[in-house]
């Protein structure tokens, strides 16, 4: 398990104090579903009598978000976070965590068509529920707001209208459909789009070669 992660040298003295913490503790996490790669090490540790797994080992196992622990290989690179002070994606596949009622989880899963929206250059992915929009115009308006949020929050720029950015053809709205093809938003009728869209990407114009002309103003 530990071989999946590399512990870099701490970026700050706080990181060092976390690492030098040496209380011997045993943390059992029995019976939780884990990916196959993790299972052997966990089971191995647990079978020994009086197993002592350091708290830090468990933190690493759970891939808990401390800044000096890098993400395991195999993680989708799109979700990697850049920028200081932010934490890597938590892949804690722990039973019953976060404490959200299973009823609620099931209900939310079924009730919407959530698709991920990636904006080239922004560190966070967002999600929109396509079912709540009735047209491309509606969707664009929502994407505008989202994009503005990105720039204001993460780059400390002054708020600027996305219409400018889209109109200025800096970003091209694209989406991946059921057949894994990348298409331009607006090419197909709205309902067909909602049904076939898997994810959306606002691509930098310089990269959107070969996708056809951007039609919307």
């Amino acid at each position, binding site marked *: 398990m530990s071989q999946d992660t590399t512990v870099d040298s701490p970026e*700050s003295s*706080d*990181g060092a104090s*976390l690492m030098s913490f040496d209380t011997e*503790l*045993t*943390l*059992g*996490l*029995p*019976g939780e579903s884990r990916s196959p790669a993790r299972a052997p090490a966990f089971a191995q540790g*647990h*079978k020994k*009598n009086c*197993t002592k797994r350091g*708290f830090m080992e468990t933190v690493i196992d*759970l891939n*808990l*978000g*401390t*800044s000096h622990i890098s993400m395991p290989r195999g993680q*989708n690179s*799109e*979700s990697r*976070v850049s920028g200081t*002070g932010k*934490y890597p*994606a*938590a*892949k*804690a596949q722990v*039973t*019953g*965590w*976060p*404490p*959200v*009622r*299973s*009823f*609620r*989880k099931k*209900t*939310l899963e079924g*009730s*919407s068509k*959530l698709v*991920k929206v990636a904006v080239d250059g922004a560190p*966070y*992915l*967002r*999600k*929109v*529920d396509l*079912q*709540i929009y*009735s047209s491309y115009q*509606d969707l664009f308006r929502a994407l505008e*707001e989202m994009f503005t*949020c990105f720039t204001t929050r993460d780059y400390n720029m002054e708020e600027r209208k996305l219409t400018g950015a889209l109109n200025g053809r800096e970003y091209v709205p694209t989406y991946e459909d059921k057949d894994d093809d990348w298409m331009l938003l607006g090419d197909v009728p709205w309902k067909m789009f909602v049904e076939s869209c898997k994810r959306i990407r606002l691509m930098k114009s310089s990269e959107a070669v070969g996708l056809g002309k951007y039609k919307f103003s």
Partner: protein
Amino acid sequence: MESESKRKKESPNTAELAVTASFPDEVLEIVLSLLTSHRDRSSVSLVCKDWYRAERWSRTQVFIGNCYSVSPEILTRRFPNIRSVTLKGKPRFSDFNLVPPNWGADIHAWLVAFAAKYPFLEELRLKRMAVSDESLEFLASNFPNFKLLSLLSCDGFSTDGLAAIATHCKNLTELDIQENGIEDSSGSWLSCFPESFTSLEVLNFANLTSEVNTDALERLVSRCKSLKVLKVNKSISLEQLQRLLVRAPQLEELGTGSFLQDLTARPYADLESAFNNCKNIHTLSGLWEAVPLYLPALYNSCANLTFLNLSYTALQSGEFAKLVVHCPRLRRLWVLDTVEDKGLEAVGSNCPLLEELRVFPADPFDEEIIHGVTEEGFVAVSFGCRRLHYVLYFCRQMTNAAVATIVQNCPNFTHFRLCIMTPGLPDYLTNEPMDEAFGAVVKTCSKLQRLSVSGLLTDLTFEYIGKYAKNLETLSVAFAGRSDRGMQCVLEGCPKLRKLEIRDCPFGNEALLSGLEKYESMRSLWMSACNVTMNACRRLAKQMPRLNVEVMKEDGSDDSQADKVYIYRTVAGPRRDAPPSVLTL
């Protein structure tokens, strides 16, 4: 009255009583019947034998926080005149799949006892109980005065059981079905209410999914003139909702159906007018799949709203902000984190009367980072809503400084439930543990009753809790602490602690056994994935016979470790209905 003659037979020498009693039993009973608080009644019953007796004859409502703390026999023996029962069953962590299936908490034995001893039972409120269709049928057929059924987080029944209730309960005033593990095979149960049936005041089937017969629903709503609460499910369209509203302008609480309009629907104006006509609506929920386009129909209704539940509606910040501007009287708000910090800023700016805020995660289990809410949103609300005293907040990052600011703005928290969704996450700005955050909460909020902690926490957090949280009753802990000392501080320091639930913490036998004397004053203790051994549990069980010490074993785990431990006080002795995976020590 039958009960009077029974009582006289039981009284000791009445001449003696006449000398010593300050006033006769009848008067005492009348006085006591005005007491509704369970705690007051418990206190009263401890004063002396006369008061105990008067209290038990005059009590009509009973609340049982743990169904295994007492038995149906003991209950019915002590209280002969009960009309209303509230029962809670499984430990709370069963909501998050931590409790094995078939664990127990079956209502049936209780119903059988009630049929014999409380044939005039009127109300039953169940939470986390196992309820079968057979039980619901039994309920429907054996209690002619039955009026109120409320099921929250229960499982084991289907819509057939509901059909039995609708068919046979002629005096039903309330049917409240919330968030249950129900087998939802058909909506035909709703059509089982007879045409002669008119007494319904509360109908909540918002969390069922199958379609009901809308004509039957319309007729039901039309003839139940006292209907105050109507919460329909997703299958009800906007058009159908409009027709229902027109027939029930007296509604006070409304749960809409789907807010997604299809192309052939009625004009928007009809909908708006229907909403405007319901001048008494103070609680609004539902709004499944809300299309922002139609939200303005609600704006006028929002002026009087005190409770808005958008926890199943994925609204973005802009749409939500536009809506919340119209809700100046809001006292309770439940939302999804899709509204983001900007949405919460709008809450801070527009809802000065807000007392309760719950922010649920729209996508808690997704691997990639989604924005959600951060400390900024919470801080913004605290600046604008100084009366805030209840919060449930799921977020992906937090800082000690932010929490300190929040409690400085809102020192009256009674319920502070903060869930930083990544286990063991430190303050993202300083990289320090979140100890000071919760320290600030317990130091500042002297009225704190309920606390859920999260993030990277050392024993210091628990030292603070033990030292300052003198009114704390419920504490939830996960992935926190460094040593037994943490748990010990809490057990030693919190005099009013009733429920302690712990998972994935490095607390072991020493901590468990340090609470030996304490557990009888608590309702229950849950410890899972900690460091507790079977031997320690056996020791505890041996020394404290009035506690049930139950261990849930996982397959393939170490035999000496106690994976999941549930300890609770009881006067009913060890339970006999535990499944094989649950060992009572």
